[in-house]
Every structure is written in structure tokens, then in C-alpha cells.
């Protein structure tokens, strides 16, 4: 496992990422469905073992695509959605009225053991220190609860790998699992998934129990 990616991605600088998302938020809902389907989202919610009235935190709610799936399972009043970009959130706000907290994934503004679950979809690839972000998700959930992350899978093709890594972080399955193990998670589960038959392994879902 290497740490060479630390210097690689353009968007790993948080302020730069925020500026990027200010503009990206305008077109995000048109582009995102190409890479992230409802089936993928439903699998994320399923692996989080979410049921009605659980209190859940979503780390990196973006424009609210995954929030929609979580809300169906637990009820809108039980979700606390966090994002570092107020502009992405404003897009979400056009769809529904989330309990929103403006904050950073690696510095969660919550007390320990507060949530019955934590979900993060399509956010980890912008975290400069994924280990710290995963440790924060571990910290804020109650013992016995699950934290689920979906993020990009490292492409096998060299050209796509180079292209992907020049803009953001594409961890391997092994890296995801190692981060989860080091954070203290048990019963770790991994699913490689994609939006269609050509891209069957585009993303990785990792779940772990505290």
C-alpha cells in the first residue's frame, strides 16, 4: 500500500475542492447518474442495516442523491447531512429539507457514539487523509452500528488509472479494507459494484461494524 497519491490529485486541497464544487454543483446532477445508479445507492443503504427511526449521519451529502435513499429507510427527520460545500447543499435543498451541518469529513463536529449509522457516498475520493475520515465515522457511531462508504475503485487499465489519479484519489480494495481495519471496524464487508455491465467494478462499497 503506497501513500504516493497524497501529492497527486488536484482536488485533494480542500479549499480548491470547495471552489471546484461551487461550479460543479450546477451540472452535478446531470453527470453523476452516469457513474452512480439507484441500484448502487440501494446497496449502500442495505449494507448500513438502516431501519426506521435510526439516527444516521451522512458524510458528504452533496446534492442529496444518497440522502434520498437514506431518508426512505429512516425518515427525513432522522438524518443529519454534512458537507463541506454549501453550494452542493443548496442543490439538495431544492429537493428536500435536510438537517444540514456545514462541516469537514475529517473533523466531524459531533460527540462520540451519537449515531445508529454513518453513510458516505462519493466523498472519500476528495479526502486528503481518508484514514482520519474513516476514524471519525467510527468515533461518532454507537457500538454495534455500521458505517458504509462507497468510493471509486482503482481502474485496472493503465491509461484510465493515470487519468483518474490526476484529478482525484482512486484507492484499491485493499486500501479501503486496511483503513477500516486500522479505524477499529469489525465484520468488514466489501462489494465491487458498477452502474452497468461494462463498468461492473467501477466502485467499491465497504461496510464495517463498531
Amino acid at each position: 500500500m503506497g501513500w504516493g497519491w497524497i501529492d497527486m490529485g488536484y482536488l485533494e486541497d480542500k479549499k480548491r475542492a470547495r471552489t471546484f464544487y461551487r461550479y460543479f454543483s450546477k451540472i452535478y446532477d446531470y453527470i453523476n447518474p452516469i457513474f452512480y445508479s439507484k441500484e448502487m445507492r440501494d446497496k449502500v443503504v442495505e449494507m448500513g442495516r438502516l431501519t426506521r427511526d435510526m439516527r444516521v449521519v451522512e458524510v458528504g451529502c452533496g446534492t442529496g442523491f444518497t440522502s434520498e435513499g437514506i431518508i426512505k429507510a429512516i425518515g427525513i427527520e432522522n438524518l443529519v447531512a454534512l458537507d463541506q460545500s454549501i453550494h452542493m447543499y443548496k442543490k439538495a435543498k431544492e429537493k428536500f429539507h435536510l438537517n444540514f451541518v456545514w462541516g469537514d469529513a475529517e473533523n466531524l463536529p459531533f460527540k462520540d457514539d451519537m449515531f445508529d449509522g454513518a453513510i458516505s457516498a462519493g466523498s472519500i475520493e476528495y479526502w486528503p487523509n481518508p484514514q482520519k475520515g474513516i476514524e471519525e465515522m467510527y468515533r461518532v457511531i454507537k457500538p454495534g452500528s455500521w458505517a458504509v462508504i462507497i468510493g471509486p475503485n482503482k481502474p485496472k487499465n493503465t491509461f484510465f488509472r493515470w487519468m483518474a489519479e490526476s484529478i482525484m484519489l482512486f484507492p484499491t480494495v485493499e486500501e479501503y479494507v486496511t483503513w477500516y481495519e486500522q479505524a477499529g471496524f469489525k465484520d468488514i464487508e466489501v462489494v465491487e459494484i458498477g452502474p452497468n455491465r461494462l463498468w461492473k467494478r467501477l466502485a467499491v462499497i465497504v461496510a464495517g461494524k463498531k
Partner: protein
Amino acid sequence: MVMLMKRDLLDILACPVCKGDLSIEVEEEDEKEIIRGRLHCEKCDEFYPIEDGIPNMLPPDLRD
């Protein structure tokens, strides 16, 4: 109507830096939500503003 910061949220919020308890100063609220004010971490002596019902809990060095 936008769902703004509810008082319930105070029970779970902590300072993003030291994870310590926060106190609140409310400048504007209605029957359901806190619209404007600020949260204070005594330990870090840092303030986190609430504007338009949204608590800005970014660590101070990550704010614009």
C-alpha cells in the same frame, strides 16, 4: 419552508477540533429553529456561526 437548525441538533454537535461541548448564543429563532447565532467552544475559544439556520462547523482553518 427550509428546515433550519433545530435545538435538537445541539445535543449531538461538538467542537470539530477538540470534540468538546459547545454553548449557544441565539440571535434569532422561531418556534422550531435557530436561525442566527453562534456556537462557542470554551476550550478552544472558538466561535462557530449559525447563519440562515445553517451551523458552520468547519474548522477555522478550512473556512473561506
